[in-house]
């Protein structure tokens, strides 16, 4: 049957149904006052009348028949979803998994962590969180995350119990990554890289970091943190990732020639010998924002200074000064966050500052449309503007604008044209808790766009 015939047939059926449905009223015969009340056991309706005839019922038969197809389709499509959900619930699988990884008092837990950002491999791992073993107020926080041979991150953070006279927090970190990103040490824009015949490249880093820190409140919202660090990093050629070539092929003296076998130390200072430094740093922070609020209000100012001294063959000496100002304006269940971060690295000897010690205004607190490590320089400045609002009791969305760049010493080549903008959107998932405006974050997802492409950042349980 062709489409015209189908149409006419359907029309004829539908019209005839309408006519039939509008036929005369149904009348129930009276049965007299002595008949007794209507009795559903006898198949009677409780009001004693015959069932109402709904003319729409007949008229809607055809549309219902047609819509029956997606109805059945949906049922079939959702059937496996319900079966899986049912199996999980009936066997309490989620609960079993949680309690297999959690102590009875919930003070010791192990849970999975997931991290992904565009341009890098997704990594998964576990986090061990223990607030019992070392005493009240203490913390043992172990994390391990991997993306196979390309990435392995292990971190241990220890916080002593509250009763400790001078509480010192200790951190150890080991990182192996063979797709870390490098694209110059002067905050090169895409055009500059192209003009230089360079591009984004990948290198390998093995890092061991030890840190000891002490933080204390001074007056009201003012606090001071002191820290000492030992940091050892070795570098090697990276792998090709996402179209980016290994660093040796891009940052050698004459790229594209057979002599291009090792990284040019002038372009990537410190690559050959690595980093071996000890550091001493102090952070002064004034923070008036409430810690547990989903929509914080207030401001924070942070000043950080770090002295780095090369050891064991590393001749570098430098001072890093950084500042971070954040202003959070709460408007009901919305917050506007304005942040300006900047810093500079001042060499204190003739030796170059190792490239990995330079400032990079990228990552989750930098220009989010750029890959982590995309910009590096002796000075950096980035402004973030984020507007976040509630879309559901447990879900927030945000729009964000970042604008930043990296420059030479003392912001020498600073220029607005050398700063890169990015825009993005984000989602945050919160727990169901006593009040929705104080609930804690479970996971976050951000998508940011810049002239160099788009970037997705996902973190859960971190």
């Amino acid at each position: 049957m062709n489409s015209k015939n189908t149409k006419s047939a359907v029309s004829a059926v539908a019209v005839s149904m309408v006519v039939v449905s509008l036929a005369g009223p149904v009348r129930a015969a009276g049965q007299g006052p002595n008949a007794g009340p209507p009795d559903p056991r006898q198949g009677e309706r409780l009001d004693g009348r015959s069932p109402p005839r709904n003319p729409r019922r007949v008229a809607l038969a055809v549309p219902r028949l047609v819509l029956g197809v997606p109805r059945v389709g949906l049922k079939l499509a959702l059937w496996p979803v319900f079966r899986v959900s049912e199996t999980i619930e009936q066997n309490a699988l989620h609960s079993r998994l949680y309690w297999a990884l959690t102590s009875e008092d919930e003070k010791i837990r192990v849970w999975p962590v997931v991290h992904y950002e565009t341009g890098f491999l997704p990594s998964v791992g576990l986090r061990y969180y223990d607030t019992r073993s070392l005493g009240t107020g203490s913390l043992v926080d172990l994390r391990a995350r991997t993306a196979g041979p390309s990435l392995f991150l292990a971190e241990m953070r220890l916080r002593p119990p509250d009763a400790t006279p001078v509480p010192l927090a200790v951190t150890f970190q080991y990182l192996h990554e063979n797709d870390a990103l490098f694209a110059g040490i002067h905050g090169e824009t895409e055009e500059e890289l192209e003009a230089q015949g360079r591009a984004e490249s990948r290198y390998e880093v093995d890092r061991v970091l030890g840190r000891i820190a002490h933080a204390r409140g001074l007056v009201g919202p003012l606090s001071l943190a002191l820290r000492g660090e030992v940091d050892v990093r070795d570098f090697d050629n990276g792998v090709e990732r996402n179209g980016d070539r290994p660093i040796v092929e891009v940052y050698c003296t004459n790229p594209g020639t057979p002599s291009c076998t090792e990284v040019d130390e002038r372009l990537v200072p410190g690559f050959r010998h690595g980093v071996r430094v000890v550091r001493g740093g102090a952070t002064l922070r004034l923070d008036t924002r409430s810690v547990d609020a989903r929509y914080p209000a207030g401001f924070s100012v942070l000043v950080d200074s770090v002295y780095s001294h090369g050891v064991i063959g590393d001749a570098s000496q430098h001072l890093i000064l950084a500042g971070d100002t954040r202003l959070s304006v709460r408007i009901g269940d919305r917050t506007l966050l304005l942040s300006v971060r900047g810093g500079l690295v001042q060499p204190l000897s003739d030796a170059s500052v190792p490239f990995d010690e330079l400032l990079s205004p990228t990552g989750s607190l930098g220009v989010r449309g750029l890959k982590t490590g995309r910009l590096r320089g002796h000075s950096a400045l980035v402004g973030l503007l984020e507007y976040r609002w509630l879309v559901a009791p447990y879900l927030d969305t945000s729009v964000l604008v970042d604008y930043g760049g990296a420059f030479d010493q003392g912001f020498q080549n600073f220029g607005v044209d050398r700063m890169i903008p990015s825009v993005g959107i984000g989602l945050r998932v919160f727990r169901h808790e006593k009040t929705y405006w104080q609930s804690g974050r479970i996971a976050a997802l951000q998508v940011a766009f810049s002239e160099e492409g788009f970037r997705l950042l996902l973190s859960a349980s971190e």
Partner: protein
Amino acid sequence: MPFLGALRVALLASIAAHALSCSPRGIRKFPDRPVAWHEHDNLNVLKAPPATPWGDLLFTMGLRDFTSRELDRILSLQGRRPAEDVNALDEVPCSTWFCPRNHLSPLSPKEIMEGAPGAGPPVLPLRILAGKDTGTALGFKVEDARGQKYLLKFDPRGYLGMVSGAEMVSSRLFHAAGYNVPSAHLVTLGNHDLVIAPSATYLAHGYDERPLTLGRVYEVFDQVARHPEGRVKAVAITWLDGEVLGPFDMLGRRPGDPNDRIAHEHRRSLRASYVMAAWLNEGDASNFNTLDTLVEEHGRRFVRHYFIDFSSTLGSWTQWPKNPWHGEERAFELIRTARSLVSLGTYERPWQDDQDEWEKAVRRYPSLGWLPADGWDPSSFRTKRKVPAHLRMTPRDAYWGAKLVTSFSDEQIHAAVVTGDYPRETSWELERALRVRRDAIAREWLLPMTALEEPRISQGGRILCFRDLAIERGAITAPEVKYLVTVADDRGKVLSRDAWTPRGSEPCLGTGDQGKGYRVVTIVAKSNGHFAKGARVHYAWRELEKRHVVVGLERDE
């Protein structure tokens, strides 16, 4: 695309059919018979129906209610369908689901305070038989000194009386309205009032059955609220008689139960339980707060249907006070979420302005929690889950639900609240909130209908008297109302039309009719420029008695 063409034609045909079906039709006459006040759904069941297979599947059932059931409802083009458990006076007769109480014959304050029948308050000491393995409230299954079983529930720390008070008050009001509920009693427990049965166990984490030790009891007691002197307040809920069959579904019928003749979503008593839920802020109303038991009475075994668990009513959300969004937002709201998303947060739900009020209220009345009253809009009430029966509620069902709620006088509300044993100020505030919410419900759901009740015909069919519930319950004043009255015969032929203004809540109108045939008087209330949905009184001539009798009352859907 023949399929799309055919679909277009089919949809046009259905629209035409709908338009035509709205034109005047003939009259469905009521037989001249006594009104049915019993559903007779308590016949002997030879074989026990199987227990509910989904009793623990909270997430799966929620997912199903939000997705396949909802899409099925929309795609099946169900439209508004009248409830089926309704008699000739537009009332719900007595059944195993519901039995009319306060709105047809008001209960005394004492009866309200007594609540549902049961074994009475527990006699101490209590023996712990098992942990409370379902729900989020803290508690135990216990047996009293007489061997009577109870479910013991405690208040969360910091909120003494919140859960126990909500259980006491709401279960009494639901029972007084006509629903089946287990009886609940307050108890205060000291250290020696609880002992552990040697065989007692509890289900840890939902899957691991363990012996119930003293340590576990202390663990629970660490989380519960106490009186200043250290005693623990709890509510003891009577264990229901009979064989427990699990919760009933709000859609379809229970398989294996021949008495279950009406699909649950077409029961007015379930549809309009939404209005009770709105009044008492039962944001957690769902399949899971119901229970069927196979009982034996007068030599017959049949299924009785209960509403249970009122811990999440009033201002309580069991573990905490309600969030401002509880009772105002579903767990998942596609449209609202999308609106918030695209409007960059300039679209706000009404509850988003309540944070300061919430802080103040919870600090001032921790035993009550969050129960908004002033400015509360009943139409904004939402249960966390989608409840299939609620979604099918028609304005006629809602009107009936409002009849239940507005039947409670201030004195009766006071009697119910007293049973919660709240601090005095909290008690006053709760009573005030329930009164304000009741009155808001009257305006929301009584006014859209012509609130005609108890029609009586006299003087040979010339005078029709009735109660106007909207006026009687203060939703509107008599001078604001005008009735448009039409009298027709059994063929729909209009015999007279008139307009009347009532002088009070029990008006009498002249019909101008002197005939002996079947008549239908249609009354449409008009107030403040709005026409309410009409009510139609059917009356017939009873030859033997030589008088007219009202044989039915129907309302527009």
